[in-house]
């Protein structure tokens, strides 16, 4: 499913949760949304889901508005960090409700997943642990083979083994059905593995959208040791994000192609030149110019 947002804004009372957000997600892509708490990730996903009405702008899923056209929601799956279930229902009653709601429900799939997770059909939801409830959520979201999956911090609260299991399941789903996925998460390591694109949300604004491999190819930390300090102009290149100096060691965060960077620094005849691997967070921080994650 193709997801498209144009200038979407959402206000709660006087507070703006989303501000002029625009992006497109082509069908079959995996789109990650990162951002600090309160950035608006949940609001964004709920708006795409059709639960919330944007204050202005438009949201379209496959060209249709998910909020007004209920038929679109048949193909959208949602897994939230905050889990809401009918606590008094048993697992099988919950499954039954979803089965009757979604025409594309696959019974064998749901049973298979439940058995895989070890969920008992007759257990009441209020007796399930948090992890088990997440698993139930996964069963519910995947069993009707939605064409669009919206995942709101799905791996929060899962141990590393379950987290890897979940991602593997997710990727298997994408590979098999070509599902479009929007996932919000703090775990950048997860996003690195699975996303085609990543967008940064900060205080309701979408700061940037990029492909991970592009990011990795374009931002580097270079450590240069120079015998004599060069001219001031040397450090005044616009592709240099930041320069820090400890005696003769200069640490530069720079944007550009690796080879050209290497050549540039080599020209200064350094005593030592090293490219340090940057975790994705630092890449983001560098690109955003320090917004969002940095403490001021």
């Amino acid at each position: 499913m193709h997801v498209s947002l144009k200038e979407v804004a959402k206000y709660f009372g006087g507070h703006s949760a989303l501000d002029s957000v625009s992006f497109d997600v082509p069908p079959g892509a995996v789109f990650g949304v990162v951002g600090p708490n309160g950035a608006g990730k949940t609001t964004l996903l709920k708006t795409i889901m059709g639960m919330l009405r944007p204050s202005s702008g438009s949201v379209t899923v496959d060209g249709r508005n998910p909020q007004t056209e209920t038929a679109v929601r048949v193909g959208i799956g949602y897994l939230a960090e905050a889990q809401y279930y009918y606590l008094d229902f048993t697992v099988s009653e919950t499954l039954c409700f979803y089965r009757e709601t979604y025409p594309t429900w696959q019974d064998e799939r749901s049973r298979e997943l439940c058995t895989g997770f070890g969920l008992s059909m007759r257990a009441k939801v209020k007796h399930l642990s948090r992890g088990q409830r997440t698993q139930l959520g996964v069963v519910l979201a995947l069993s009707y083979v939605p064409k669009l999956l919206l995942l709101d911090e799905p791996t929060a609260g899962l141990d590393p083994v379950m987290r890897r299991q979940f991602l593997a399941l997710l990727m298997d789903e994408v590979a098999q059905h070509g599902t479009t996925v929007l996932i919000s998460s703090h775990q950048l390591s997860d996003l690195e593995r699975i996303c085609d694109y990543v967008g940064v949300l900060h205080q309701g604004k979408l700061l940037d959208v990029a492909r991970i491999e592009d990011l990795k190819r374009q931002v580097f930390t270079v450590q240069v040791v120079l015998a004599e300090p060069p001219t001031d102009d040397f450090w005044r290149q616009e592709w240099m994000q930041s320069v820090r100096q400890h005696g003769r060691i200069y640490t530069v965060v720079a944007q550009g192609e690796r080879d050209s960077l290497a050549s540039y620094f080599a020209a200064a005849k350094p005593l030592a030149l090293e490219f340090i691997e940057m975790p994705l967070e630092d890449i983001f921080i560098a690109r955003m110019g320090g917004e969002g994650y940095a403490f001021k």
Partner: protein
Amino acid sequence: MFNIDQRSATPIYQQLIQQVKEAILRGGLCAGDKMPSVRELAGQLAINPNTIQKAYQELERQGVIESLRGRGTFVCQSVVPTVDAQKQAKVSESLRRVVIEAHYLGLSAEKIMTMVEEHLHDLKLGVNR
């Protein structure tokens, strides 16, 4: 079989390409062997199938693997290295960069050469094959 390091500066699909090639060279994958499907690999490694698809496409373009309709993807019978002037220039540039780095890390020219030979030997590409 494959090990992806997401923190590395190298994009995942490139790592995958390298690892496939390395596996073939080391004998882990032989000519005619069936490659895991995109779906299987995505599930095993928990990485984006588009990435895997990209890697497979590139490997196919390079003539390392071939996909036979309805039967799967297989390692090519004979890997014919194509001589590509542009690619050669790129490799040369990469080598140059590595040499610069090595130098500034304090490695002497001899050490660099020894390391190259070690790798060649390890990959069974050495002069004494």
